[in-house]
């Protein structure tokens, strides 16, 4: 039939029109991330902070005489789209480095691609501990904390608190279960007398937490570990406030104190919620952090959130890595950044050689109202340095076997 011929003609037309890139004089970074839907509140910051560093470096003449160029693709939280876009960036745009994605499924799929194609891939928000754990390899790098790290850090801090009767609750999906089980496993290890008196799980996207909260209140635990993610963070805090839970039983959520969670609630967020996170724009109150916040605010007129740190550090590693390698060869680049440290708003950060996981300090504290801010911030802060909570190299490498 004629249509097939027509079809072929259209194919050829498009392929000729959009033929691949030519010889390059730049270092190309391809970012695949979700820029549609609820995840955007996190992903825009990664991209924007990355952009800040890249602009600055390019203004100063680039790296190895080359400018850094980056391009983004919206995967819409769909792994098949994300993977196809990663392939497009790699094979058509010929990017030297891949980074991105908040979606663990996409990150794992792209990681597999990066391994086959031998291209460095920096994961900048996906929290699955499989990425640098069980499924880790030479070409993948974890630039944010994962569920295992968050769990260990929380367990470390909670083990120093007087509570013994715990309740566990959370979003019923991979992330929720992974966080909760990591916290609990390590808390039990550090403080064997803790006791779990019950568990509650709700569907992801649950808007109404009342029945679960009622059930928990009736059981009278000392403390609740709440494993929510994304919009569930805010939704649970709102419900905890509306039902009075927040003033009755203390609870912990990973990232509860983070600006993405607190700023949308304004002054209506509950006080006294314990949380951990990797970045706060007001803490530590160092020169580096102040400068970064100021620069970020000048460019985008908002406070940087945790994603900004991941974007910033990733850009730094790319720049410093190529500088150190003195060549654009990818293998030499990887050799160079293994075990390397860069400066960041939260101090020097090391990319571990053994598992390619970034060692990040974790801040632990609880929400409170402070005059002068029109949102809650974290108080009673303590810094848990990487050495106190990072999973040891041997343990991670054992998982890979």
């Amino acid at each position: 039939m004629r249509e097939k011929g027509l079809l072929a003609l259209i194919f050829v037309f498009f392929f000729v029109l959009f033929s691949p890139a030519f010889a390059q004089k730049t270092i190309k970074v391809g970012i695949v991330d979700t820029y549609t839907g609820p995840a955007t509140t996190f992903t825009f910051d990664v991209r924007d902070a990355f952009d800040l560093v890249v602009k600055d470096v390019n203004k100063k003449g680039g790296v190895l005489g080359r400018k850094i160029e980056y391009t983004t693709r919206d995967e819409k939280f769909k792994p098949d789209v994300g993977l196809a876009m990663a392939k497009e960036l790699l094979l058509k745009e010929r990017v030297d480095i891949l980074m991105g994605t908040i979606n663990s499924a996409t990150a794992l799929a792209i990681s597999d691609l990066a391994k086959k194609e031998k291209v460095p891939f920096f994961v900048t928000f996906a929290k699955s501990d499989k990425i640098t754990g069980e499924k880790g390899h030479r070409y993948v790098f974890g630039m944010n904390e994962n569920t295992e790290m968050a769990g260990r850090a929380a367990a470390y801090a909670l083990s120093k608190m007087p509570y013994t009767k715990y309740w566990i609750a959370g979003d019923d999906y991979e992330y929720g279960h992974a966080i909760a089980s990591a916290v609990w496993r390590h808390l039990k290890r550090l403080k064997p007398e803790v006791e779990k008196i019950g568990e509650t799980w709700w569907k992801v996207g649950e808007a109404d937490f009342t029945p679960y909260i009622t059930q928990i209140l009736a059981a009278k635990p000392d403390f609740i570990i709440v494993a929510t993610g994304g919009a569930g963070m805010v939704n649970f805090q709102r419900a905890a406030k509306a039902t009075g839970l927040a003033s009755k039983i203390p609870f912990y959520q990973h990232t509860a104190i983070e600006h993405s969670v607190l700023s949308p609630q304004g002054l209506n967020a509950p006080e006294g919620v314990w949380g951990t996170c990797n970045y706060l724009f007001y803490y530590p109150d160092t020169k580096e952090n102040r400068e970064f916040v100021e620069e970020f605010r000048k460019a985008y007129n908002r406070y940087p959130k945790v994603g900004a740190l991941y974007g910033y550090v990733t850009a730094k590693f790319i720049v410093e890595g190529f500088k150190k390698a003195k060549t654009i060869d990818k293998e030499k680049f990887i050799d160079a950044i293994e075990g390397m440290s860069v400066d960041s708003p939260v101090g020097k950060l090391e990319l571990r050689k053994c598992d390619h996981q970034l060692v990040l300090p974790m801040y632990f504290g609880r929400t409170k109202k402070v005059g002068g801010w029109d949102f809650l911030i974290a108080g009673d802060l303590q810094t848990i340095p990487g050495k106190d909570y990072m999973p040891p190299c041997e343990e991670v490498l054992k998982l890979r076997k």
Partner: protein
Amino acid sequence: MDLYAVLSQILVGLSRTVILFIVSSGLSLILGVLRIPNVAHGSLYMIGAYAAYTISKYFGGQDTGFWVALFGAPLFVAFLSFIVERSVFQFLYEREHLMLVLLTFGFSLIFGDLVKLVWGGEYKTVPVPRIFQGYILLFEHLHLPIYNAFLIIIGPVVALLLWLFVNKTKMGKISRAAAVDREMVGAVGINVSWVFGVTFVIGCFLAGLGGMLVAPTISVTLGMDHSLIMESFLIVIIGGLGNIWGALLGALIFGLTQSLGILLWPQFGIVFPYAAVVLVLVFKPKGLLKSTW
């Protein structure tokens, strides 16, 4: 499984039912009278929530903001739908259903991206007004937030108003007649196009109202239209197309199986509402109550 857990799940199922009902009744009205399976209905719900955020913020972010938004947000959605109806949909009433599904899906894509353009990617919240803050203690253990109690009351009120509109007003009667035989209604000299327009706008108003009412309990995010639209369609189908009480019944079934299913079998809690829909359609293929089709 203790009695409290069941009871509190039922209470929550009820407040969820209210939101589902308000949105689905609008969808049902549009399907029943205009025969448009409006996939963009979910987007209007989302726009309602975002409009509630903007309006409430503009009026100080507290009590006044909430009350202005309660009427302002749905009206804004109604106005938006009026424009869309007059400029596009009114020409498409006779098209194949599948075409309409995809056309309105196209609109939902457009609306989704427009929301992103206008409001950006950050989470938004709408504060609960002061008189609805706090909770009521039922049976000593049950903490029911006052706002949820407010929702449970408002559901039947909307149902009643809608019933009065459809059965007691001239407009409602004409639209019901038009649903059954639009040519006949046109033949007696009534401008069917305007009847349809008004019905469409009322349906969309309900979507906006649903979005506005849900906003104080959740974080308003992009993509909140997605799961809701599918649920609303299923509710309308099992209730009986175009039947307002059917939408209420469908929403009850959906809301309650969802919340009780989680108690029964936590890991596969999300399966129960779908299973309920399958059961209803297997035994009552045209829905539980009389459809206008």
